[in-house]
């Protein structure tokens, strides 16, 4: 759908385009390690898609486990948020934003903030 400006969008189209693909993540705000919440598995798929969770298994559970906490921390580092590992409001707000489909972490390495932080602590080599 192409429009020269917003006012040219037909009103009949507007009600159908307000629900984003990831709106359900709103329900996960406040979740943290150790919890089991419906919808966590979908969030794990999100983090898997963008390179934050490895390709160990794509049959993700709804458990907020160590892998998810690490993924959330790395995401927070990359997006300049407090790296708490918890799904605080600002993290969820960032996750909900539309974005590029290219992964942030490719083949387990990144030179975004999380990769630099890991390199400085000796976990990996940036390049």
């Amino acid at each position, binding site marked *: 759908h192409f429009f*020269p400006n*917003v006012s040219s969008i037909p009103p009949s189209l507007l009600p159908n*385009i307000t629900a984003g693909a990831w709106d359900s993540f709103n329900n996960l705000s406040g979740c943290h390690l150790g919890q089991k919440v419906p919808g966590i598995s979908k969030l794990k798929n999100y983090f898997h898609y963008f390179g934050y969770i490895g390709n160990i298994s794509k049959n993700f559970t709804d458990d907020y486990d160590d892998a998810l906490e690490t993924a959330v921390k790395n995401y927070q580092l990359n997006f300049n948020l407090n790296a708490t590992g918890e799904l605080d409001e600002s993290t969820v707000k960032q996750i909900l934003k539309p974005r590029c*489909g290219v992964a942030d972490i490719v083949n387990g390495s*990144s*030179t975004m903030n999380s990769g630099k932080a890991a390199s400085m602590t000796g976990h990996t080599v940036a390049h």
Partner: protein
Amino acid sequence: YSFFPGTPRWPRSRRDLTYAFEPRNQLTDDVKRVFTNAFARWSEWTPLTFTESNNYNTADLKIGFYGGNHGDGEDFDGVLGTLAHAFAPPRGLLHLDSDETWIIDDVFASGSPSAMDLESVAVHEIGHLLGLGHSSVEDAIMFPTISSGIRKVELARDDVEGIQVLYGTNPDSNSTTGPSFGEREMSGAH
């Protein structure tokens, strides 16, 4: 800035790149002009040139709008979510989600929570076509997210430094520093 693993880039023998649009999309000249402008943002700072070709099959860079599963293993997810993706050199594929509401002219008077500025997304994806990965610098074009109603089309210093590591500076630029960063165009309703 970041690069893809292995730092892929277009070789020195392929710095004058051609681009073409998926013929099945039948894009208007107005839409095509958005991409012309987006390519110019990158050629301004580098020795790369970009020329539109009518031959989709032989073009270096192939641009198309697709919905859902479109055959590359990277399905689109409908409105919002992922907006587009592009592949590192030398694949040259730039795909955009045809389910989005794309604004091609004026995004400022936003009354829709899901209208996306096409040029902003195009400039970002061209960065991937040229070999840049994502950046943690929020002002950078290569920052992974963009809100609806936002227009962000000017390269930031981080983008320029990254692309010039790959390709060097624009030899036709009159100054050593290139265009100014002081008059950046970034605005929107949100």
